[in-house]
């Protein structure tokens, strides 16, 4: 464990992290994750975070060394897409029993499991995840992995991020460390070129990176490795030969980006493919970094030409939604809007942002939000579900964009909701992805079910109107009472 705690300290001390630089030495040592409040905590553990980051590497067998819950309750739940291998979707766990734990058979079982996987699936590598119980009982997964790697002549990578060490975010970073320690740099590509890049922190949710990759292809830029979305083990192993790194999804893999710069002199920038201006900016930055590293500067001109063309097309498509969406009010309730460019695009077509959470936003982000929102009160740290429900029930927003966790607050308040987190089924990256997002907002807001579900039952109207109490059975009362309910579609009836 001592090596693990050293690693955690190292991860916490992240010089490339803006937040971290703002802290004093003592605060820095405490780490970036706030201590969890028992009874009021939400979100995943470090193991969850590590697995999320690594599992989309598609040809690797991911083996979870744990009793059933860690893997059994969490597998097959993410929408990242693969263009080839499907091994990553198969769930492997040692499924430790009481006896295994009592008798200390964990390590032996793990070794056997590695052998079975190697024989049945012949993967290019096996990743082994430690978890709370196996860390607690002291199973030495690093030793087992080392021994198995030698014995089977196969990379067997220990991922040391048991759940109790911290939050999901910490797990993300520990996964990056594992790649640095065991994977990246272990293979030499024979085709390295001046236009090679890596994309770090891109998960290819719903295949959305495939909306972006053709743009890069057109510029002659090769993605050596997208880590982890749709990656292959060998691509990751030879990622150190790229000329530039783009880091997406905020700070999840910032340690990976910085250390790759340190070790292999690969410059990186933080960018996003969400929203039109951000997509353009990302393409620009990539080209600039490549030129800095020796690529032909003519790529800068080609990049600008592509951006101009694509932006024009995207804005034109978005403009078509303006008549339908102008003046609609959006409530953003997500850990931190990854890209202000999305907000920018929404506002550009006349959508109003009536509120946003700033829980995970940096001070710089908050400044930007202040500029965008007319009213500072619309910023909130986090909102209790009850308050959120009240706000939505009062129809203070026309739609909420958030993750699945708060979905039912919106739905039970009978307000449209759109998933913008990892469980979603629509690709939102790049120019076309932005258009798709707006299309989905349009579909959600204008779905006819809202009118139906908000209408109270007609018999309640009757009582509210103080009608004569039910019980009179004269023909006329029936017909009159009934005609009243018939409402707008009296046409549907053949009253006689």
């Amino acid at each position, binding site marked *: 464990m001592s090596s693990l705690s050293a690693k955690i300290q190292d991860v916490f001390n992240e010089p490339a992290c803006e937040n971290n630089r703002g802290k004093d030495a003592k605060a820095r040592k405490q780490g970036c994750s706030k201590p969890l409040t028992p009874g009021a905590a939400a979100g995943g553990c470090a193991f969850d975070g590590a697995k999320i980051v690594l599992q989309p590497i598609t040809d690797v067998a991911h083996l979870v060394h744990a009793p059933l819950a860690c893997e059994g309750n969490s597998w097959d739940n993410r929408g990242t897409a693969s263009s080839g291998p499907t091994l990553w979707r198969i769930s492997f766990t040692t499924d430790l029993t009481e006896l295994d734990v009592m008798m200390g058979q964990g390590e032996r079982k793990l070794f056997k499991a590695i052998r079975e996987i190697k024989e049945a699936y012949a993967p290019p590598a096996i990743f082994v995840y430690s978890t709370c119980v196996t860390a607690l009982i002291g199973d030495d997964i690093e030793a087992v992995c080392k021994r198995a790697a030698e014995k089977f002549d196969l990379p067997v990578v220990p991922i040391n991020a048991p759940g109790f060490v911290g939050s999901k975010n910490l797990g993300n970073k520990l996964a990056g460390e594992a790649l640095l320690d065991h994977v990246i740099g272990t293979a030499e590509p024979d085709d390295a070129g001046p236009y090679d890049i890596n994309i770090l922190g891109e998960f290819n949710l719903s295949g959305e990176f495939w909306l972006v990759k*053709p743009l890069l292809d057109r510029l002659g830029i090769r993605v050596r490795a997208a880590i982890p979305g749709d990656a292959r083990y060998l691509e990751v192993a030879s990622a150190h030969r790229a000329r530039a790194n783009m880091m997406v999804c905020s700070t999840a893999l910032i340690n990976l980006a910085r250390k790759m710069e340190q070790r292999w002199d690969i410059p990186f920038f933080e960018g996003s493919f969400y929203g039109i201006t951000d997509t353009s900016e990302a393409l620009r930055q990539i080209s600039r970094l490549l030129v800095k590293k020796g690529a032909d500067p003519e790529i800068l001109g080609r990049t600008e030409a592509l951006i101009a063309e694509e932006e024009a097309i995207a804005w034109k498509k978005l403009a*078509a939604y303006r008549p339908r969406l102008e003046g609609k009010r959006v409530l953003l309730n997500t850990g931190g809007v990854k890209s202000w460019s999305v907000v920018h695009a929404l506002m550009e077509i006349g959508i109003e942002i009536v509120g946003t959470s700033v829980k995970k936003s940096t001070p710089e982000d908050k400044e930007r939000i202040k500029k965008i929102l007319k009213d500072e009160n619309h910023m909130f740290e986090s909102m209790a579900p009850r308050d959120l429900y009240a706000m939505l029930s009062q129809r203070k927003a026309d739609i909420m964009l958030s993750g699945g966790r708060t979905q039912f607050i919106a739905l039970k308040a009978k307000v449209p909701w759109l998933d913008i987190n990892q469980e979603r089924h629509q690709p939102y990256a790049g120019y076309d992805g932005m258009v*798709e997002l707006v299309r989905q907002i349009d579909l959600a807001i204008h779905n006819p*079910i809202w009118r139906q579900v908000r*209408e109270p039952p007609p018999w309640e109207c009757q009582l509210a109107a103080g009608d004569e109490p039910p019980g009179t*059975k004269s023909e006329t009362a029936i*017909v009159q009472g009934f005609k009243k309910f018939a409402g707008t579609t009296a046409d549907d009836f053949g009253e006689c």
Partner: protein
Amino acid sequence: MVRILPQTKAAAVNPLKSSQPLGAALAFLGIDGAMPLFHGSQGCTSFALVLFVRHFKEAIPLQTTAMDEVATILGGADHLEEAILNLKSRTKPKLIGVCTTALTETRGEDFAGDIANIRQKHAEELAGTEVVLANTPDFEGAIEEGWAKAVTAMIGRITRPGEQARQSKNIAILPGWNLTVADIEHLRDMVESFGLEPVIVPDVSGSLDGTVPDRWVTTTYGGTSVEDIRELGTAERCIVVGEHMRRPAELLHRLTGVPYTIFQSLAGLKAADRFVSLLSAISGAPVPAGVRRRRAQLQDALLDGHFHFGGKKIAIAAEPDQLYQLATFFVDMGSEIAAAVTTTNMSKILEKVPADSVQIGDIGDLEALGAGADLLVTHSHGRQAAQHLGIPLMRVGFPIFDRLGSQHKLTVLYQGTRDLIFEAANIFQANRHAPTPEALDPFRHREMPDELRSSSLARH
């Protein structure tokens, strides 16, 4: 305004229709102790019988006058007489439902006169058996028309005419053919929960509900009793489901003065609300807690389900009232009707179908118009079209021969609408296309019109 496009092809390709006498026979099958009788050649009956059996997985009582060459030339009255007498002596039915076919109608005989003669001539022998005639040539209409004609004929023949003392708790219900066994059972429960007593004509829930009787019966077992049809005039009100049931309701009103209320569809929150309100108004009873609970469940199903329907393109082929029922259901969920195909242009309901146009046609038309849709909705014969187009098929209507339990699927009121939402949403989920680099490549789709492209994006 929906345009109704007539059929212009000479060759029907993969027919959508089942014939009119089949619809009439189906209605007679909802009467207790009934024996439908096709007045035509043997084949008319055996094809219909086989289709019924494939759909219901039941032994179906259905007989034929077995017109032969000589009878076809000289007239079929003798065959009709013989058939009725044979059925009477062998199966002792309470009702014989005569359905004419194209063959006998083309000859153009006076069936009503023939049957009147037979009744008179054999008054004693036929005592206790009603003989009802429905004129249902195959060359006209389809199931809907046949069903409605049979019900009209039964009311005209059996129901005691004249204003009668109304029983304030009695409700007559005339359901359309597209209501399943489960629908009818559910309607009855709903009406009874208000303290009302429904008489349902026809009532397939008693006869075609797939039970195992402990004896061999050659007629239908279960369904509306002939006596109940006779006493329809005592009902407080008649509730009609489906535009095609307007004619029998009008006849009942004319004969007995019983007022009626038509529900063109019972699917959807609004329609169910109106139905429940009507029952509450008639009975004077408050809406039971259980019904309110079902309503809340439907609200939740609308919320949970709508994600799967928004922007989806649906291609439907069904008989007019069912087409209307399903098209409004999908449109109310946020989908659009990309293609609507129906059997005949005889129904006024077609003008209200929420689609740009309704094609009178066949499954070949559905296949042609449905390309690019997200879901085909029709009966089992649509499976080839679904396969050719690579689009999932939701099975509705008749016949459904490659799935079990179609009779026990609920499609009306709160619960039925909820079930429809789940069924369609599950089909969408089961057929989600995994994203591929090719499908998402923005350049590959540049040449296509925006609309097509964005829908291919959304369809997984």
